[in-house]
């Protein structure tokens, strides 16, 4: 708009009055700093080994766009229904909202989103690269292998998935009890993966009826055979004890033993909890004995809570000394332990040693052990080298050209479902890198979200997350005045009696309204959620909104670079940078 002009007194009005607006005055040329919309990473995404785009997922869920939220999860993690039930949710621990009132119930929401997709019968949208024509062998159809298979298919590789057992799922199927993870839920999610064209070969054991030679014909091999070998108790009479993991498998396969009366469970991890709670439901009266303190229990806090609520007593600082008697009537001798060294970190465990207190002997009908696992056997000989955070590469002399990767519980100390899933994803990316002559380390680096190893496929293959600044937004970088305190949604569950007497899923569904309300609690750290603060507070009317496309940009004709928009953004989705000269 060009300025109004007058040639002389004759053209002027008789007194000073306006004939036009100030819009000809492009105040943008005052600027020496300029604002920019720049999304960033969030701590929840960083903490999630699978690097799920949690802020965007919650934003979509808050709007009721559960389908889109589900698809977004599946880009990084094909097991939201599973994780929504059994994950240890490091995202919630890292959630910035935790410093405000209480973390967002991300885990619960993930379950709701997945269950919603299942109820609606939605098919996942899979963006798939062109078929490369190469075949990859994945050994082990647990979460690690299945995750790798899912991502390998997306990257255009044909996948042959082998497993020693009859059904895919690994620990998910054979260890986690159905009251935590119903079988049909697992089967649905597994099917979604296999339906992508994965060839599943059940009943094939590595080192047994799956010879190594057969694998040499593949372009690459990924070994994810897990850690199914239970640690021995190392006490006399240990053959009288029942392997906890085996027990769980038997129950899952319909071979639950008849059991009643007092039983002992040795161990403190999730498996021990699962064993105890399963025994309870079968009619026995289990007690858990753990060698360290209660606060050292490695099981998930929620697991421990549910276990004790159901009436299972956990006795700390007691280790098994010896076992005698006959099956059905055993004598278990326990040694009291004492702390000799407190842990030096919040996550460390105390060091314990036998104390001087006298031993006790109890009469039990059975003893179950669940004191940890070792890597399964059957690997070929070779040298291992770590690749990224979740993998090892195996170099076998006889097949120097064949890329062999190891992942999951087989090689990781952090044995959780989501870590397994992350490991599988990393394997797919690494295999793709090795087969296309790219440096896997570089790729893994390029797809990083934050500094804890979380790998985003979206970021790696040039999705929208690549546009985000690789900076994890800290709580101190938010403008929290725009948030309101709100209680975290409680996840409803079965009554105690229902839990103790059956294998129905303990945690119940939440309503859509509850889910949307809880998702709304998410701060959306680092991503723009169209709140319009920038628009409303701009003194120069320089934020242009395209409401239909949910896009906004700065009108640099007028923006004076004051920076108010950047400061008033509640979630740090903007930056202020120097004006380019």
């Amino acid at each position: 708009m060009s300025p109004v002009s007058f040639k002389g007194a004759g053209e002027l009005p008789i007194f000073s009055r306006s004939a036009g607006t100030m819009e000809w005055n492009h105040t943008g040329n005052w600027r020496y700093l300029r604002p920019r919309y720049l999304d960033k990473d969030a701590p929840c995404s960083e903490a999630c080994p699978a690097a799920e785009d949690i802020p965007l997922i919650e934003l979509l869920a808050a709007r009721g766009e559960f389908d889109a939220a589900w698809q977004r999860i599946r880009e990084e993690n094909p097991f939201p229904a599973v994780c929504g039930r059994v994950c240890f949710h490091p995202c919630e621990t890292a959630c910035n909202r935790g410093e405000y009132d209480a973390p967002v119930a991300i885990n619960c929401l993930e379950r709701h989103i997945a269950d919603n997709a299942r109820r609606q019968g939605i098919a996942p949208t899979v963006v798939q690269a062109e078929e490369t024509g190469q075949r990859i062998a994945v050994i082990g159809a647990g979460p690690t292998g299945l995750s790798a298979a899912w991502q390998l298919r997306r990257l255009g590789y044909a996948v042959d998935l082998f497993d020693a057992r009859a059904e895919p799922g690994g620990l998910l199927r054979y260890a986690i009890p159905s009251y935590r993870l119903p079988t049909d839920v697992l089967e649905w999610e597994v099917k979604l993966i296999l339906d992508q064209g994965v060839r599943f070969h059940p009943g094939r054991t590595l080192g047994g009826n799956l010879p190594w030679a057969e694998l040499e014909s593949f372009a690459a091999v990924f070994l994810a055979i897990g850690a199914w070998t239970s640690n021995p108790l190392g006490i006399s009479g240990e053959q009288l004890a029942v392997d906890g993991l085996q027990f769980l498998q038997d129950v899952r396969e319909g071979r639950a033993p008849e059991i009643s009366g007092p039983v002992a469970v040795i161990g403190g991890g999730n498996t021990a909890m699962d064993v105890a709670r399963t025994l309870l439901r079968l009619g026995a009266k289990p007690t858990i004995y753990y060698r360290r303190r209660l606060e050292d229990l490695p099981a998930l806090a929620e697991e421990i809570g549910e276990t004790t609520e159901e009436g299972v007593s956990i006795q700390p600082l007691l280790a098994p000394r010896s076992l005698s008697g006959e099956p059905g009537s055993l004598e278990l001798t326990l040694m009291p332990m004492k702390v000799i060294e407190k842990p030096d970190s919040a996550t460390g465990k105390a060091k314990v040693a036998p104390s001087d207190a006298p031993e006790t002997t109890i009469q039990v009908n059975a003893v179950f052990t669940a004191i940890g696992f070792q890597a399964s056997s059957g690997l070929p000989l070779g040298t291992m080298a770590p690749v990224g955070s979740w993998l090892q590469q195996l170099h076998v002399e006889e097949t120097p050209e064949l890329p062999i990767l190891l992942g999951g519980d087989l090689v990781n100390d952090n044995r959780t479902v989501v870590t397994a899933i992350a490991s599988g994803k990393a394997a797919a990316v690494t295999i793709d890198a090795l087969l296309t002559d790219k440096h896997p380390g570089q790729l893994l680096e390029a797809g990083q979200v934050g500094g804890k190893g979380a790998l985003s496929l979206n970021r790696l293959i040039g999705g929208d997350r690549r546009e985000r600044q690789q900076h994890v937004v800290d709580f101190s970088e938010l403008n929290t005045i725009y948030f309101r305190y709100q209680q975290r949604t409680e996840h409803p569950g079965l009554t105690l009696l229902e839990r103790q007497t059956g294998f129905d899923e303990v945690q119940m569904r939440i309503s859509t309204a509850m889910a949307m309300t809880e998702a709304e609690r998410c701060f959306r750290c680092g991503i723009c959620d169209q709140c319009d603060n920038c628009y409303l507070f701009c003194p120069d009317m320089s934020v242009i909104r395209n409401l239909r496309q949910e896009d906004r940009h700065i009108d640099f004709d007028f923006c004076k670079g004051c920076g108010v928009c950047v400061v008033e953004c509640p979630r740090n989705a903007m930056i202020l940078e120097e004006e380019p000269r």
Partner: protein
Amino acid sequence: MKKVLEGSHAVSHAVALARVKVISAYPITPQTHIVERLAELVANGELDARYIRVESEHSALAAVIGSAATGVRSFTASSSHGLALMHEMLHWAAGSRLPIVLAEVNRALGAPWNIWADQTDSLAQRDTGWLQFYCEDVQEVLDSILLAYRLGEEISLPVMVVFDAFFLSHTYEPVDVPEQEKVDQFLPPWQPTEQLDPLNPRALNQLASPEYYMEFRYKIQQAMEQALTSYPQIDGEFFKLFGRSYPLVDRIPAVAGKQASLALVTSGSITGTARVAQEELLQQGVAVDLVKVRSFRPFPLQQIREILGGYPRIAVIDRNISFGSGGIFAREIAGALASLPQRPQLYPFVAGLGGRDVTQQSIAEMVRRALSDAPPEDVLWAGLKA
């Protein structure tokens, strides 16, 4: 209709006849009767207007600037210190080109306090862009209000109707009060070219840079010059409707058709006394032509030159003084005559300051001095206690 009205009340009734819509004024002796009567007229419904009872003169003029800018006919009145307090806003009103009419009762300025007739207060505002008409009697005061609105609205400038404290403001005279119908004919509703209107939003009176300011000032001067042409036509119409006429400069010869050797220039109520003095002097064999100056702004340069230029001597009575200079009418007249190849001898008298009486005798004395004394170098003081 003939009525006996006090000068102040004549203003009030004229304002009512003019169908003014917004009145705002702050009382100051001797203007108070104007606003009191107007408040009554509004209160009893005779005048359909809003009366804003402000807390100072500065606010009074600010208020009517606001109302005039919103397109309604507005009025205020003041005197002396009140007018002086308005000074800033007088400039603002003229610069805004708003045809506000202000009834100004000429009263002396302090310090020291003095409430009586003196023209210095209105003349001190001669640079503000307001037109100024000086009235001789109550009839002229009433008629001038109507003429002021008509002229002001035509050229878009504010007008001061000026008259002496107490001599006119508080003096009762028989007055012909025009009929409303005829006034409506003479003074139709105001059609402003610009007003504050949410349906046509504009900013008014924003800053004007050096690029524009001078042209705006030029246009005000142009409007003043236009007034000199428009006024006689308007006066002619007034005469047709009401039988009275008020030229900008009026010459009253001692003997019809003849030019005396001295012209006596007066303004305001002194003119009435001068008429009586003229008659008496004539009877004594002294012929003095009277020249009544009604319009001080715009200063009627041409008429002054035409009417006064041919006299050998002129005496000017100023009931005012600009310190360090002299009587203001006299100086402006001298200025007007300066371009003439032959100029009359000027006898500038300062008289009647602060309400001191200017009588027939003192006028006769001034005439005698003007006829016999040598041309003065300095200000001539009349009636001064030396």
